[in-house]
């Protein structure tokens, strides 16, 4: 499906990542957003608040992030594509509803513009320390999708991808920005609507009043949806439920349900995962990075190459599901993996895990509040090369 022209601001814009993200949502067909202001993400909802009334969308500033994160789920069941936007402290408040979205298979997009944490931390300064939280922050077992843009253009593009993936897999998708990318201003090219591919909601074809089972599979691991008002009377619950959607509290139903919820992501991982690379083939050392850090590490790689080291650059556009297989294979081919991130080790642990001792792994930690000095990354590359 092509994008609805109403929401698409075709043209070249010199805007920051937050604004680009809002435009991405609009282009993706998002027509409902509930949010609660928090630096450095507020510009996203501010832009939506000002743009929505002109395209038939609704922004509501809810009383808090708990409310925002469940209001969007309500809106989705009401028929909208919906998103909420926040930053660390607000993200922490959304954890319960991430679980609800997973359990009820409610497609939605949650944007987290990461700042320095923990707690109130560094409200206006960057961090990348909510990456594991995106994966593990809600109770129970589940899988989600998380994308990490490294430019305003990607804030636009990946927000569209996020909506598309959420619709395809009926799962909450996180756009894990960081303050740098959120506040960085660059040219963002918004294509014509008919160049923007949109995944429409996959609705059941059971007619009004027909016998619709909300969680009956239909070919793949993802059941088709319905909306309130379509005459299907689904029951939607966060309790463990059977294919009728009815609570069925026993280990068997749990096993069927929770495994499917994970499998629909894990078994489609290859299809979901996007990476970018440069010079990875034949490299001895690969720098694995994401978000702003994938740009910050470039001078270090350039320098290292200039010094004769064979250094590859691998960027995780998709951080979750983690590219286990890819990193495992890569570790078998290289000497070392270097992971700079604006945290004291998060995605690094995944790299370490997948490397399985085949390659050495090297974290270049940073507590946040700024970006790495490329020198620090260079130093670790050189160490790793030794």
């Amino acid at each position, binding site marked *: 499906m092509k994008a609805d022209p*109403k929401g698409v601001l075709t043209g070249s814009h010199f805007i920051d990542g937050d604004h680009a993200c809002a435009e991405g949502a609009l282009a993706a067909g998002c*027509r*409902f957003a*509930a949010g609660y202001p928090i630096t450095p993400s507020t510009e996203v909802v501010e832009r939506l608040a000002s743009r929505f*009334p*002109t*395209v*038939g*969308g*609704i922004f*509501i500033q*809810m*009383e*808090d992030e*708990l*409310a*925002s994160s*469940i*209001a*969007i*789920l*309500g*809106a*989705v*069941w*009401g*028929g*909208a594509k*919906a998103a909420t936007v926040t930053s660390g402290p607000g993200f922490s408040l959304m954890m*319960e*509803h991430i679980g*609800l979205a997973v359990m009820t298979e409610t497609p939605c997009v949650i944007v987290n513009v990461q700042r320095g944490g923990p707690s109130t931390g560094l409200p206006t300064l960057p961090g990348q320390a909510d990456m594991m939280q995106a994966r593990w922050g809600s109770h129970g077992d589940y899988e989600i999708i998380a994308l990490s843009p490294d430019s305003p253009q990607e804030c636009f593009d990946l927000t569209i991808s996020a909506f598309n993936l959420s619709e395809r897999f009926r799962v909450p998708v996180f756009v894990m920005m960081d303050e740098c990318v959120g506040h960085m201003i660059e040219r963002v090219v918004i294509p014509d609507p008919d160049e923007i591919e949109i995944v429409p909601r996959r609705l059941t074809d059971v007619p*009004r009043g027909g016998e619709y089972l909300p969680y009956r599979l239909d070919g793949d691991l993802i059941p088709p949806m319905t*909306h*309130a*008002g*379509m*005459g*299907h*009377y*689904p*029951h*939607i*619950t*966060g*309790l463990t439920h059977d294919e*009728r959607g*009815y*609570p069925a509290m026993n280990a068997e139903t749990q096993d069927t349900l929770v495994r499917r919820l994970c499998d629909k992501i894990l078994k489609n991982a290859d299809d979901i995962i996007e990476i970018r690379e440069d010079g990875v083939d034949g490299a001895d050392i690969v720098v694995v990075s994401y978000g702003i850090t994938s740009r910050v590490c470039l001078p270090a790689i350039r320098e290292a190459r200039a010094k004769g080291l064979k250094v590859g650059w691998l960027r995780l556009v998709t951080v979750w599901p983690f590219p286990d297989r890819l990193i495992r294979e890569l570790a078998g081919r290289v000497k070392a993996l270097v992971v700079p991130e604006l945290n004291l080790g998060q995605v690094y642990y995944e790299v370490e895990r997948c490397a399985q001792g085949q390659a050495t792994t090297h974290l270049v930690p940073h507590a946040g509040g700024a970006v790495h000095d490329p020198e620090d990354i260079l130093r670790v590359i050189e160490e790793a090369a030794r």
Partner: protein
Amino acid sequence: MSTQAPPAPTCEVHNPTEQWLRMDRIPHIWCPGCGIGSSVNCFTDALEKSKIPRDNVSIVSGIGCTGRTAGYLKLDSFHTTHGRPIAFATGLKLANPKLKVVVYSGDGDLFAIGGNHFIHAARRNMDMTVICVNNMTYGMTGGQVTPTTPLTAKATTSPYGNFEEPFNLPYLAESCGAVYVARWTSFHVRQLSKSIREALLKPGFTFIEVVAPCPTLYARRNRLGAGIDAMKYYREQSEIKNGAPTRDVALGFQSKIICGKFVDTSRPTWLEAQVQQHRAVLGDKFTLAENWEGVGEPRED
């Protein structure tokens, strides 16, 4: 222990509630004499009489015994998280203004953990009907104290008697801006049904408190007998005072229960106010979503 199993009634007539129920989930989990079931009869009766098409009604519950209501009703039904049904309902309503959204939940769900959503939705005059079955305890988790437990009543987490002043729910609702506020007990089935019908048909944030027995936990711990004893108490100790000032209707332990319709007023709903404001300021640039036709047009009430 039991007589021979009697034949199921064979007649064609059916319990009028049944058509609104997911009969494949009956019998429900509620205890003997629990007041929630009675309130459901009133709700389905009101729905019936409201003539609102079934397909346009959504029911949203939180977590709790009352929260299970959504799961028994053959409506688009959402069993959300504890305390958050109003916030979910807000999104649901705004995404599809044609829906009549009903929030059906317990006192703990709506007023302990969910208190903030209640007061904000009331303030916003968010278009929904909130029905609170107030059994003065957390039923589902085993009888703890709630923000509506009367003073001196015992609960597992107030084992020596509650010493925290409860909320006066109608007063709270009114002070936040609810346009319709009523209280009944599960004894007042006719009045309750009528109130729910009025609320369903009224735009804006409408609130009905249903005082109802939890014989298994609240009543047992307080040695108040079975459900029927609660019902008799309601019969004897209720006083209907329509229009009573809400500040005067607080509940005490086994005290008099002031019932009635306390507030019935009108102001623009959130959606109406939004449309009006945006249309006024943005003029032609304002775009109504496809499914909002008529929203923000003048209404009579």
